[in-house]
């Protein structure tokens, strides 16, 4: 059954309530399925929980609301260009603090556009990082023996383990 309301209320994993318009929620496949299956009306007391923390959910909803008009109706080239600039500004965020959470949320909510954007942003940020910065951010331990490090250095003289 299709929904008869303009916006629905969802709960974050922290238990906070958020409003999201139906057209924006449709950007997420699981939310779209839910909208098709459940009748949301003003007297409906069913509030779905999204397993994403409040801080991340605010950003995800912001992205959805911005992209929904274009996703639903298509857009001109100038709109697409404006949206691209907006995406760049939107993605200016701390990697550890929020970007990784956005990645997890976009993956969980099956949001292809946001997932691609977040992956590309993470890759662009990683380009400028040192090997030890990468290890720290991804919680990785250096498991090369000193002999293996030496061998890799010989093969690729520019290689650094720090």
């Amino acid at each position: 059954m299709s929904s008869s309301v303009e916006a629905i209320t969802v709960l974050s994993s922290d238990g906070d309530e958020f409003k999201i318009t139906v057209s924006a929620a449709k950007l997420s496949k699981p939310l779209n399925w839910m909208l098709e299956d459940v009748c949301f009306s003003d007297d409906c007391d069913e509030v779905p929980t999204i397993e994403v923390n409040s801080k991340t959910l605010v950003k995800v909803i912001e992205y959805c609301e911005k992209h929904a008009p274009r996703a639903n109706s298509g857009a001109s080239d100038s709109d697409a260009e404006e949206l691209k600039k907006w995406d760049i500004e939107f993605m200016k965020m701390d990697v550890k603090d929020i970007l990784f959470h956005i990645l997890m949320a976009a993956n969980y909510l099956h949001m292809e556009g946001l997932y691609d954007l977040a992956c590309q942003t993470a890759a662009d940020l990683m380009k400028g990082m040192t090997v030890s910065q990468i290890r720290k951010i991804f919680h990785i331990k250096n498991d090369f023996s000193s002999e293996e490090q030496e061998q890799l250095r010989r093969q690729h003289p520019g290689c650094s383990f720090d």
Partner: protein
Amino acid sequence: MESHAPYLPQEIFTNILKRLPVKSLIRFQCVCKDWKRLFKTPFFIAEHVRHSRCSVLVFNRWGYKHKRKTLCLIDHDMQVLKYEDPFSLVRRYNMIASSSGGYLICLDDKSSFLVWNLATKELLRCPKFLAFAM
């Protein structure tokens, strides 16, 4: 101030890493053994190539003065990428094919075929009699 980044699953990891240029991947193979192994898997290589910007070889320049040859490629954005021949292969050779988004090129230097990976700078020499027998 230490914030807690979530542990990303392998699938997300791979999706980020396949977007990195080869130069970064060579650097990041020193991160850990798992990453080094991952970068060599056919699956990852195929995913990376699919994401890479395609480049084509347009001309090779003979630098007899410096006894070095420079291969010039033009990429997706019409940028010219120059690769110095790291092996000082001063003999004349012809490029006969390129693949993997222009990273892998095959050269013919009369006595053998050379497969040169521009990204990793690895060179495989294949004698012609062997190549014809295949």
